[in-house]
């Protein structure tokens, strides 16, 4: 069992990891075909995995309804929403689902006029959260937060026309803050991230890091 649960996945991770790392440097058609094959497998696995996700979601909400857990009424909407969408998806505007997808069906309507506006509503909350987070952060209690406050005010003013009206130097300073200290910090983080990503990949490829398989050994 240990062979199937540990050795085989580690061997696959090593083989595919090394091949994919070298694939980047090989422009030959065989190399591209291998990449295409791996990508196709990834899509196929993802397609099957959707059923696991749906099972998990339905099982969770069914259990909540069954146990009358707090807010169980909302779980009914999960089944209603999913059921209606699946039904219209299969109905396919009067043609069965095994035909090409028809345009402007009820399925599209549900996406355009229910899911998209609902998502946009959640996204719009971001503006309010940004204000509350900024208020907490920009209180000048320490030297660092004072520097942050001043930099934020200059950048905000530099990005709107009124900043240039107050002083023509404000947009220039704002651009300098974004282009020099901000960019330097961003690149520093990116360099660290890149090295960390390579080191983590090597640990996974060589089986040093194997937590993703579950357990340590």
């Amino acid at each position, binding site marked *: 069992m240990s062979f199937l649960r540990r050795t085989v996945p580690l061997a696959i991770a090593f083989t595919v990891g090394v091949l994919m790392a070298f694939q*980047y*440097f*090989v*422009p*030959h*058609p*065989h*190399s*591209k075909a291998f990449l295409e094959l791996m990508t196709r497998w990834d899509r196929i696995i*993802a397609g099957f*995995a*959707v*059923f*696991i*996700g*749906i099972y*998990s*979601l339905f*099982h*969770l909400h069914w*259990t909540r309804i069954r146990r009358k857990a*707090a*807010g169980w009424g909302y779980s009914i909407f999960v089944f209603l929403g999913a059921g209606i969408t699946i039904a219209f998806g299969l109905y396919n505007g009067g043609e069965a689902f095994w035909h090409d997808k028809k345009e402007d069906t009820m399925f599209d309507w549900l996406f355009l006029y229910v*899911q998209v506006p*609902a*998502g946009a509503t*959640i*996204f719009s*909350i*971001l503006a309010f*959260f*940004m204000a*509350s*987070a*900024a208020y*907490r*952060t920009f209180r000048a209690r320490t030297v660092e937060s004072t520097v942050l406050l001043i930099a934020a005010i200059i950048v905000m003013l530099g990005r709107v026309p009124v900043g240039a009206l107050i002083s023509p130097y404000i947009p220039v300073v704002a651009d300098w803050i974004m282009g020099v200290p901000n960019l330097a910090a*961003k690149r520093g*983080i*990116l*360099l*660290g*991230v890149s*090295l*960390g*990503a*390579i*080191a*983590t990949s*090597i*640990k996974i490829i*060589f089986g*040093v*890091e194997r*937590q*993703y*398989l*579950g*357990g*340590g050994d």
Partner: protein
Amino acid sequence: MITVVAGLMLLPLIPLQAGELIPPKSFKAYDTPNDGGESISLVWRASPSDSPEVDYVLHMANSPEGPWQEVMRVRSNTYYKNSALERFGFRKRNKDTHLLQIDPRRHFSSDKNRKALYYFKLAIARGEEFIPVEKVVSGRARGNWFNTAKLNNFIIMIAFSGVVLFFIIHARRNPKLFLRKISGLDAVDEALGRATEMGRPVLFVHGLTGMGSISTMASVNILSRIANRIAEYDAELKVVNNDPIVLSVSQEVVKEAYLEAGRPDAYNQDNVVMVASEQFPYVAAVGGIMTRERPAANFFMGYFYAESLILAETGASTGAIQIAGTDSYTQLPFFITTCDYTLMGEELYAASAYLSREPMLLGSLRAQDLGKAAIIVILFFGTALSSFGIGFISQVFRAF
């Protein structure tokens, strides 16, 4: 006076010189380097007649006898070899050499033989004037087995991989490695202890990327360490996912962690769930869990997008202790402002090693630090040399 007379004598010659078309030299065809066999490169030295009014005309055939077909006509002051740095490097003479890359299958789509030999004729033309280059050249497109333009990347990858492996082996022999303090990871025990004392769950929130992303791999590794400690503390862990593959891996990882801690009975599959697959439905679902169940500690690990601030602000409003870790630099400011501790960039990758204190994992952290030191030295010297007009370092590290 003598100058004026000499000038007048030369006047009749000027139109003749301007009208003289000089055919280019050194016309060659060869397989384009560093490609997958898609094209043939044609090069020739720039002619003294090159000007916006003069064209180069290329004819192509699949046998030396023809039939020939015109496949390209370009202005003679365009298409130089220095425009393809990734294939021909930084040689100075590239700016005096013309380059055309032809995909033979575009013009001879009926040819089944991918390695067929093709023939090319070049001519220089201006209006009605047309002077062919005598030489007919041939070439075939072949797939290359190594992209030499990426040689710098390859050397860096091999060198850095070697350093990582060296320190991993070194750490096994010398387990007492010094490790700089990472406050966010030292606070993990504090957060878990708080959740245990309060009798409230710990919420682990994955980022939006799938299992193919290295940040998700890192977050799964952290999840395993956290799950193991939660099992020991007998607290409750809830893990939310938006990707079914990450869900399956997370379920397996948490289950194994509970088993390893000797508490397989405490594992509940309904606590590791997929709540939504889209970004904002995911936010709504996780926000709902935070406000209803009021976890004592929230962990945000992985690659986040616009949802980061909404999630972290919702968590902050419930009074939970929050630890975030992301390599998404655009979202770092949001986590820093709203979370108690934030793992920045590579600290996310270091977390698993830091929490486990396993010498072999810690060895890679030393290699990362060495890599950063090397980059700092190169940046310092590169900046200094560039300031004196020596720019070869930027060419050496150029990515194609």
